[in-house]
């Protein structure tokens, strides 16, 4: 039990530690909201990734999906579409990209690692072709509210994140789709023998992941106030890391929304703390890498203790 709580305890320890080390800066409202804003995008992608990983898959293309979604949404706005239509288009683009991933993995029966490695290249390339490699700047000023605005005193993105987290949690724990995802990830043969429409639900999971990533792309665009065709590079690894630190298993069948959120915030606080304490960004990367390995090895240790 104590080991299952380890990610929570780590998060709390980090929070307390940073509050003591840098009480004025760390606990200031500006700093805390900026942590929330910075991690919101990774958090959203990680939520989708949680579903994918639980179902036994992986999505390496989320960084590219993020850029594609952001670009489509901002281009629509630049062409004079209302903000809401732009955001909707961004999310829809993400959803379609995710659907493509799911379709390829289930129909061609190719390993998702390979499929999404491929679509990572395809989507990134397509985004660069569509945009000619140039960022989109002509965005209505009001769009910045999505990433930078506040609603009743808290960052607007926090509301978005909370709603999405609740929805994904409900999907996982209380719906058929979630139960099937666990089942497919835990033993795909058994799921198939049980008559579960495996291909349909696997595709749905990738599509949802794409949707959340598309939304992340719009938030990223809103924070930068540009549609960057090169946005989101390397984000896939952070999203996967968040899931894994939070107890998700790359072998499928394990993971939770709470765990993933905790995982993402641990990484967010590590980055923020390093900034506050003046630790070099190079060392920062190494610290985050070490955290991933530590978290997973503790989790493996716990599981081995239980099973044998």
């Amino acid at each position, binding site marked *: 039990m104590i080991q299952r709580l380890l990610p929570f305890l780590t998060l709390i320890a980090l929070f307390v530690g940073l509050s003591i080390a840098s009480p004025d800066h760390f606990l200031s409202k500006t700093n805390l909201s900026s942590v929330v804003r910075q991690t919101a995008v990774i958090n959203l992608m990680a939520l989708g990734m949680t579903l994918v990983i639980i179902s036994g898959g992986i999505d390496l293309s989320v960084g590219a999906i993020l850029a594609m979604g952001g670009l489509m949404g901002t281009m629509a706005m630049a062409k004079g579409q209302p903000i809401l239509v732009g955001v909707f288009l961004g999310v829809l683009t993400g959803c379609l990209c995710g659907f493509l991933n799911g379709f390829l993995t289930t129909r061609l029966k190719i390993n998702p690692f390979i499929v999404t490695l491929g679509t990572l290249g395809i989507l990134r390339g397509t985004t660069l072709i569509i945009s000619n490699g140039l960022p989109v700047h002509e965005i209505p000023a009001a769009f910045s509210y999505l990433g930078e605005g506040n609603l009743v005193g808290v960052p607007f993105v926090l509301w978005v994140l909370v709603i999405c987290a609740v929805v994904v949690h409900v999907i996982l724990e*209380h719906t058929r789709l979630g139960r099937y995802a666990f089942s497919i990830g*835990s*033993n795909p043969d*058994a799921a198939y*023998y*049980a008559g579960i429409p495996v291909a349909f639900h696997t595709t749905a999971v990738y599509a949802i992941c794409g949707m959340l990533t598309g939304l992340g792309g719009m938030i990223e665009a809103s924070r930068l106030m540009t549609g960057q065709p090169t946005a989101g590079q390397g984000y896939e690894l952070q999203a996967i890391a968040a899931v894994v630190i939070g107890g998700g298993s790359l072998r499928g*069948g394990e993971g939770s929304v709470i765990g993933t959120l905790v995982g993402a915030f641990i990484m967010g606080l590590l980055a923020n703390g390093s900034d506050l304490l003046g630790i070099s960004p190079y060392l920062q990367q190494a610290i985050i890498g070490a955290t991933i390995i530590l978290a997973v090895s503790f989790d493996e240790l716990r599981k081995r203790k*239980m099973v044998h």
Partner: protein
Amino acid sequence: MLLQLTAIQKRFGGVVALKNGNLAVAPGEVHLLLGENGAGKSTLMKIVAGMHQPDGGEMLWKGQKVSFSKPADASAVGIAMVHQESLLAPHLSVAENIFLGREERRAFGWVNRPRMLDQARRLIEEHRFPLHADWRVEKLSPAGKQLVEICRAIAHGSSLLIFDEPTSSLSESETQEVFRIVKTLRERKMGVIYITHRLEELRTVGDRVTILRDGETVHSCGLNEITNERIIQHMVGRELGSMYQRSALAPGEELLRVEGLTRKPLLHNVSFQVRAGEIVGMAGLVGAGRTETCRALFGLDQAEAGTVHIAGQAVTVRSPREAVEQGIALIPEDRQRTGLATALPIGHNLTIADIGKVSRMGFLLDHARERGLAGEYARKLRIKCESPRQLAGRLSGGNQQKVVIAKWLVRGARVFLFDEPTRGIDVGAKVEVYEVMDELARSGAAILMVSSELPELLQVADRILVMRQGRITGELPGRTTQEEIMKLATLHDGGALLEETAE
């Protein structure tokens, strides 16, 4: 004494698997370890093999106190275990597997292949194993894989060999082969511990017997000092009613009609019908095409020719999903691999085939209802568990089997295909399974029951179909004899250890 265990204890979290495990094995003795599902047999043996560490008690090996922290420690002193799930490297050859981890090396770490092959060949010849040193292990049947594990144990000079339910997935002739090997091991003064749920084989192989109940050794004696009835009493701790015999009922309308089902080279023109309320047995040797028939009916393999009618309607079934929609259920033979999500709770496993039963508005899960349903079936099949929230992988082998069976009972169907339903299930619980099947038949289901245990077919089935080499060779009434069945099943006994490749 070769091995002496005293007061061994083992807990898994809150679950007490062993309270007081005692066992003494002498060299040259075949020691049977018996007990109900979940009694702690496998756990005790995994402790001996170094896979689990005991929480208490003493283990003496050749008179010396020992403790093993990993399997390698146990194999170093000469203890080997033949596992149910094969732990071999499938892409390597038989010889390579026998010497895996102990390859003879030449200079620079080169493996001395010719010598290894040669040694493996001699070993196989000496014991007259139906194997070839250069066969690839993935091509072997479960029985063949077990033989390789046995070869390994002998090659490593083990003096104690543990078999955990070795014959549960073997055909009759393969079982005889295992008995023969066990006897040669005994002649070589090795100790053998043998776990089984098949009472009819006890006296063919065993010398002594130790019975576990709820994690405690309740009895230990020579096999000639005890009757089977007493053994069962010790196992279940109560009197078990007389032999189960199902009373047939008048069959209703024809629910399943199969005509000319063909899938070369495994199935040739298979035709039969099953009526509502009927339990039709299917006998035959392993590889006779019984499992293939079930697979084709359930849409796991596509038949080349033939028609299937469900309740008079012609149906085509191309996937398990379509089969389920047509009201067909398959309780597969290979239950751990194809039936169970070990990392998920028992409750999830039970409801996965019919989640609609525990859903509101078609998609929101009703957890309370799920737990209730899971609890109900756990009681019905006597699944020994803490709660429906326990992970399925933490159950004993036999109880895992019961979960898979229960999953399809929860789902319900018009046509049930039971493939070896009582494999690995203890005597008491076997009767529960028969009773559940009977109940299904009485409520109007048609049941096809594939089984390699002839006594149980005779007890349960209304009619018995016999298959050989992909063909139905005859149909017998339920009250026939084992000899009649074997006659139809073995005109030519292939018993090949190499599985037929589908070409």
